[in-house]
C-alpha cells in the first residue's frame, strides 16, 4: 500500500532534524542568545550602542565643536582663529545689516516656498484622489514622483536653462512684450519650490485619499457646496500631512545655497554666507550656521507634538 504520509528517514541518534529553512538548535546551546533573551535591558543596549555612538560621537560631537568655534574670534591681520569666549560673532549677525537682511531674506524664501507648495499640493491631491480616473491617478503619481529622483543639481540646471537671458521663458514671454524674472529672488523661490514640491505633494495626496468617503456625504447632505466642503472638511484634515511636508520644504529651503548661487544672480542666502566665510573667517561662519539650526529646531519642536516627525 502506498502512503501519502511523507517518509521520514530516521534521524541519527541524539540529533533533531527538521525540514524548516534552518535547523532548530536545542535551547541553551547559545549562551549569548539566552542571556539576551532574559535581559531586555541588555538587548536594548545592544541595539542602540552602535547607532548612538555614531550619532552622538560623530554627528552631535561635530555640531557641538562647530558651536564652540562660533565663540572664538579671528585675528583680523593674520586670519588665524583664536580660541576664547566672545559673543562678538553673534552680535555681528544682528548688528551687521547685510547679515540681518540675509537671515530675514532666507526665512522669507523658505516660508514662500512652503506656502507655494501647499497652495499647489492641495488642489493636486484632491484632483488625484477624488477626480482623476484610476489610470490618470496612477499616471500622475508617477509624474509627481519622477522629478523627485531626477537629481537636485539636474533640476537647478534645468531651471537655469529655462530662465537664462535668452532662454525658453523669456522667449515665450517676448510676444507678450514681457520678460521673465531672470536670475533673481523670484527665480530662487521658484527653483526651490520646483525642488521640494514632491515632498509636500505626496503626503498631502496620501492624506486626501485616506479621508473617509462618508464625511463628504455628510457634508453634502448638510448642504455644503464643493468649495465649502473643501474648505471646511478637507483642508483641516490635511493639516498633519501639510506639517510633515512643510518640515521638508521649510528646512531644505532654509539651508540651501546652490539655488541662490546658480539661479539667484546676486541673491544671498544664509548658506551662501557660511560657504564664503568657512575658510576666511570660520567663527562667523559657525555663528551663522546657528541661525538655520535655531529656525529648524524651533519649527521641529513646535510640530513635534502633532506626531508629524514620525511620518517623515
Amino acid at each position: 500500500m502506498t502512503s501519502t504520509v511523507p517518509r521520514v528517514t530516521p534521524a541519527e541518534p541524539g540529533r533533531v532534524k527538521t525540514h524548516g529553512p534552518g535547523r532548530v538548535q536545542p535551547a541553551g546551546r547559545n549562551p549569548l542568545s539566552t542571556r539576551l533573551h532574559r535581559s531586555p535591558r541588555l538587548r536594548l543596549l545592544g541595539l542602540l550602542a552602535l547607532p548612538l555612538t555614531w550619532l552622538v560621537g560623530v554627528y552631535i560631537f561635530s555640531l557641538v565643536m562647530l558651536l564652540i568655534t562660533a565663540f572664538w574670534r579671528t585675528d583680523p591681520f593674520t586670519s588665524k582663529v583664536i580660541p576664547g569666549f566672545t559673543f562678538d560673532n553673534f552680535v555681528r549677525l544682528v548688528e551687521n545689516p547685510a547679515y540681518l537682511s540675509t537671515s530675514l531674506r532666507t526665512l522669507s524664501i523658505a516660508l514662500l516656498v512652503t506656502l507655494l507648495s501647499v497652495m499647489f499640493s492641495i488642489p493636486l491631491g484632491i484632483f488625484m484622489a477624488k477626480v482623476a480616473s484610476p489610470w490618470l491617478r496612477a499616471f500622475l503619481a508617477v509624474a509627481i514622483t519622477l522629478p523627485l529622483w531626477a537629481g537636485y543639481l539636474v533640476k537647478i540646471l534645468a531651471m537655469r536653462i529655462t530662465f537664462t537671458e535668452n532662454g525658453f521663458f523669456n522667449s515665450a514671454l517676448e510676444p507678450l512684450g514681457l520678460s521673465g524674472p531672470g536670475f533673481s529672488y523670484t527665480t530662487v523661490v521658484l527653483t526651490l519650490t520646483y525642488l521640494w514640491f514632491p515632498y509636500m505633494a505626496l503626503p498631502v495626496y496620501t492624506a486626501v485619499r485616506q479621508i473617509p468617503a462618508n464625511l463628504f456625504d455628510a457634508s453634502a447632505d448638510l448642504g455644503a457646496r464643493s468649495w465649502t466642503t473643501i474648505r471646511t472638511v478637507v483642508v483641516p484634515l490635511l493639516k498633519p500631512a501639510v506639517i510633515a511636508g512643510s518640515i521638508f520644504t521649510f528646512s531644505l529651503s532654509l539651508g540651501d545655497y546652490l539655488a541662490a548661487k546658480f539661479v539667484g544672480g546676486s541673491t544671498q542666502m544664509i548658506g551662501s554666507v557660511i560657504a564664503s566665510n568657512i575658510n576666511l573667517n570660520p567663527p562667523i561662519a559657525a555663528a551663522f550656521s546657528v541661525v538655520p539650526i535655531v529656525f529648524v529646531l524651533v519649527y521641529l519642536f513646535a510640530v513635534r507634538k502633532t506626531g508629524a516627525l514620525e511620518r517623515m
Partner: protein
Amino acid sequence: MLRLTRGAKIGLGAIVAVVLVFMYIPLSLVVLNSFNVARIATWPVTDFSLNWWVVAFTSEPIRAALLNSIVVGLGATAMALVLGTLTAFALQRYSFFGKQTVNLLVVLPIALPGIVTGVALSNTYNNLLEPIGIQIGYFGMIVAHATFCMVMVFNNVLARLRRMSPNLQEASMDLGAGLWQTFRIITFPQFRTAFVAGGLLAFALSFDEVVVTIFTAPPGVDTLPLWIMNQMARPNEASVVNVVATVIILASFIPVYVSQRLSRAEEED
C-alpha cells in the same frame, strides 16, 4: 464621495496641468539641449548632433566621478542599513527614557541644513582629527553620507515593524529558536521589502547629495554631482553637463519602477 461641480473639476484640472507643465518643461529643455550642437544651452535649439554624447561617454573625469558616487553610495547605504535597522528595532520594541530624543537624533541630520552638517563634519575632520594625525579622507565622506542616509532605512523599517504581529516571533522562540535564528527565519523576511526600499532610498539620497559632499570630499575627488556643479560654475562646456543630466533623468525611471513593484508586492503580502 466628494461631489464637485463641473467648474470645480475644471479648475482643479487646470491647476494640475500648470503643475505638470512647470515640472516637465525645464527637464525637457535639458534633454533637448543634450543634442544641441552649440557649446552652451540655447533656445530655440536649431542644430542637433550626438557629439556631446560621444564626449560624455568617453570622458575619463565623468567615469571617475560616477565610480566615486557608486562607491560612496554603496558604502553609505551598507552602514545606513545596519544603523537604521538597529535603531528602528530599539524604538519599536522598547519603551525607555529618552526615546523621543533618540527619534529626534535620527531625524536631525536630514532636518538640519546640509551645509551645517557639511561644515560641522569638515571642521571635525580638518581641524580636530588631522592635527592629531588622523587622515580620514575618502572614508570621511562615506561616514557623512551614512549619517544622513540612516533616517531613510529607519523610517521604512520602523513603519513596517509597527504593522508586524509579534505572535510569530513568540511562537518561534517558544519552539526553541534563539534570537538570531528567529530574526533570520521569522522576523527578517517580514520586513525585507521595507529594508530594501529603505536601502534604495538611502542610496538615491547619497547619489544625489552635493552640499555635504562639497565640504567632506577629499581634495581632487569628485562625485558625479560635484562634477556637474563644477561644470555649471564654469560654463564653457555646458552641453556635456546636459548629457549627464539627461542620463540621470532617464535613470530616475528605475527607482520609480522598483518602488511601484515594491508597493505592489507589499499589497499582495
